[in-house]
């Protein structure tokens, strides 16, 4: 028996009511095989499958009916590979784990190494698999305080899952050992060792001395755009990496898609060509003749050249000659500027995209002073578009912005008074915001039900409610799955505005027409 919840105006959440750990993965297989028109991406998790869809192809009610008719596959028919990972069992938490389980260190190691594990789903980070044990396994609580840095290759336990950290990251799992196996390698096929369905056995070893070296991210050194000032954050962005949930990869991508499309149209690029996304007062110097355009935030900007200074206006293409410097100044409305250059930003793509995913660490490093950014072939076949489309009105600090939301999938985790608070009060966009999420602050915290939710697929625009009741509005670099209940999601058509909310803006949430479940 399954139930289907609304996750956003472009996603449904299929909740699988079963006890076996592979119920959700078997359901995910079955939905995949049903090949329902309009389904864009499936994100399986512990007990759920998030189904993202294209509303121009299929409407939510019709999709829900189709999904309700899907029966889970009798057995998972996914990736049948099995891998053996050598482990040196010397983790910092091994004694704590042994104590908690009332076992000796040796017994813990023996049990971990003699169990066959299966990747139930991917999440948290690229290449990170949630490994479910075959047979019963004792529940292991997470550490009370997460570590800020866990080395790559760490083998860990939490709940009834085991996992290997593919790269160094913060985390709250209990560390029992380490492996030198490389679980994530962009130059290998498959990139990710783990994928849903893969079985894993751990082989005790004493030879491991070093964690796998992180793959070097390519230097940005020879292009015609020199970063003179990087502002607060200067990133390469494009449409991101949708459809890679099976590798544990979030879509990421530009925060304001309309700005990217406008800037690219102005310089005559394909609308999805890679651009620079700037937060703050970046400055860029040209080392070749270029054509550029800036869209997005309302910024005081100009080109400084040897013969003087020229004003630049939003959405209008302009020339840059060698030595010219484009300087972005004070932002008066919106938050992020998008700089397109004719030919597109040409850093090497990673998994089909040039975007930097700041949380997952995919794509180029954030750009720094002195970087020389490469540009693609200017022979785009499209002329520039000199006359800009009509201007957009973006929010400024102090403005009140009304955002349309769809309730769900976990709106029932709010008490009736919590729901009144959500839709009734103004929420302040705090300065503690980045490309992962915007921390909203309200006078009254949201009153929510206590409890632990199993990790489940999340959407950009989702409003996640941690126990303190101050919600986080998820942005493109959000985690693939999350463990806090998402009670509502901003509609897709307003995500560009969400990407342009400066700190100090106030937000009102409104349930859009026909958006209630």
């Amino acid at each position, binding site marked *: 028996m399954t139930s289907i919840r609304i996750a956003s105006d472009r996603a449904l959440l299929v909740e699988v009511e079963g006890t076996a750990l592979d119920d959700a993965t078997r359901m995910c297989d079955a939905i995949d095989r049903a090949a329902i028109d309009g389904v864009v991406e499936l994100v399986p998790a512990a007990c759920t499958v998030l189904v993202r869809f294209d509303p121009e192809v299929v409407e939510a009610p019709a999709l829900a009916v189709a999904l309700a008719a899907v029966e889970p596959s009798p057995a998972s028919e996914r990736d049948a590979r099995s891998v053996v990972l050598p482990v040196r069992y010397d983790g910092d938490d091994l004694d704590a784990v042994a104590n908690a389980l009332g076992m000796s260190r040796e017994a813990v190691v023996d049990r971990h190494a003699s169990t066959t594990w299966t990747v139930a789903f991917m999440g948290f980070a690229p290449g990170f698999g949630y490994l479910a044990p075959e047979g019963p396994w004792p529940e292991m609580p997470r550490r009370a305080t997460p570590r800020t840095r866990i080395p790559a290759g760490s083998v860990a336990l939490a709940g009834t899952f085991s996992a290997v950290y593919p790269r160094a990251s913060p985390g709250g799992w209990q560390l029992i050992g380490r492996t030198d196996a490389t679980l994530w390698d962009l130059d290998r096929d498959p990139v990710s060792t783990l994928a849903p369905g893969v079985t894993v056995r751990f082989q005790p070893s004493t030879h491991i001395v070093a964690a796998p070296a992180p793959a070097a991210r390519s230097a940005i050194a020879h292009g015609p755009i020199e970063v003179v000032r990087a502002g607060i954050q200067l990133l390469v962005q494009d449409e991101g990496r949708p459809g890679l949930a099976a590798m544990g990869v979030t879509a990421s991508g530009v925060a304001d898609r309309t700005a990217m499309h406008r800037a690219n149209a102005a*310089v*005559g690029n394909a609308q999805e060509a890679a651009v620079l996304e700037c937060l703050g007062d970046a400055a860029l110097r040209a080392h070749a*003749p270029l*054509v550029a355009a800036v869209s997005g935030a309302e910024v005081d900007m100009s080109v400084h050249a040897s*013969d*003087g*200074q*020229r*004003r630049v206006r939003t959405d*209008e*293409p*302009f*020339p*840059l*000659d060698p030595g010219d410097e484009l300087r972005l100044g004070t932002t008066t409305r919106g938050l992020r500027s998008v700089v397109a250059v*004719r030919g597109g930003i040409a850093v090497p793509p990673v998994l089909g995209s040039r975007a930097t995913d700041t949380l997952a660490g995919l794509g180029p490093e954030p750009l720094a002073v002195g970087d020389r950014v490469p540009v693609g072939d*200017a*022979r*785009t*076949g*499209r*002329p*520039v578009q*000199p*006359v800009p489309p009509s201007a957009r009105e973006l929010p400024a600090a102090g403005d009140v912005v009304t955002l349309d939301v769809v309730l769900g999938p976990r709106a029932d985790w709010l008490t009736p008074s919590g729901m009144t608070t959500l839709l009734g009060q103004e929420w302040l966009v705090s300065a503690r915001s980045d490309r992962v999420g915007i921390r909203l602050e309200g006078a009254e915290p949201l009153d929510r039900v206590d409890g632990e939710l199993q990790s489940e697929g999340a959407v950009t625009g989702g409003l996640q409610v941690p126990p303190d009741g101050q919600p986080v509005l998820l942005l493109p670099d959000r985690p693939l799955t999350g463990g806090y209940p998402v009670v509502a999601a901003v509609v897709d058509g307003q995500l560009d505005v969400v990407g342009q909310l400066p700190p100090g803006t106030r937000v009102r949430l409104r349930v859009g027409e026909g958006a209630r479940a």
Partner: protein
Amino acid sequence: MRVLVVADDASTARLARACRFEGLEVAVGPSPATCDAETVTAALEAEAADALLVHGVSLERRLELARATEAMPTTWIGASASCLEALAAPSALSALAARAGVEVAGAPPTDARRIEVVVACGGHAPDVVLGDVDRSARRRDDWIVEESPAPSLDARVRATLHSAALAVASGVGAMGVASIAFHVDAAGVVALVAVDPDALAGHPALESAIGIDLVRARLRMRGSASTDAEPRDERHAIAMRIHAEDADRGFLPSPGAIERLQAPGGPGVRWDAAAAQGDAVTVGATGLATITAVGGDRDEALALVNEALREVDVRGPATTLPLLRRLVGDRAFATATHAVRTDWVESELMDAGEPQPRATGDALVRTVVEVDGRPVTLAVPTSLLGEREALAAIGAAIAAHDAE
């Protein structure tokens, strides 16, 4: 008769000349950007004009003006309101194409030529095809090269185009000089693209090839006089538009002052200026001039236009001259097989050369303001200043003028 002319600056000069040749007085009306019925009616009264000639104005606006003049003693020199109304209907093109027995053009095909057929439609005399022009060399879906007659066109295709154009013109009830645009694909299939029932000042190559001034021909058709627009010559002409744009930066406009604008000369070369030395190029107005070369055959026209392009000298803004010089020497254009298609300029020629240095001089925009009832011209540098500063500078200049 006194004619109020509503057109951009360059076309106004051309239309006014034709009016004077036909013995008509001329008054210059409001700009095409601000020519709603109210403004134009006021201008007709203020100028004591009894005829109206508009050019470069949208179909909707022309329809509005044609209707407004119906209730006035003013002579409307242009397609009738009923003709414009028929063209404004959403299914107008498909109905006309069906009548003419051709396809309707969908998305711009990449392997097509664009050929326009110009038809003189009189009241009593039978409609007559004045000629055809090839406008396949385009940027931003606007022609940069016009050639008449269309080179290396299959005789059967030409016959199809001409008879389809006559059918379309009569189907829409055109009265005057109409231009009917078609796409012709690689297989010779003809599709209707657009209908302009008032093709006035926009066909320099055709005019040179057939020896007729289309504006004068149109003016002689007032009332229901016979067309008197039989082609006189059978020559070959090539027209090229020069823009202040850098074709090697995606046709990026190059705003700034025109420091020098030297026209070519000699027999067989016509120069229609759209700007003058000292003017400022703005993003919305990059046209500099059109060169039209006419010869006894295509080779002669090519040689003349080649030499004319060599003689032109523009200083200040970047221009499309480097692209036009490449174009005229390119095999696809210059050889008898003539392989130019609508996407050719943007896919093959654009960005194939070195970008020009961007204009270095400061752009001056001349603004006329009224001070104590007298017009005062102010030159304001815009590239150095934002709009707000420009307005402040205008304010300061007025204050200085007042103080004198």
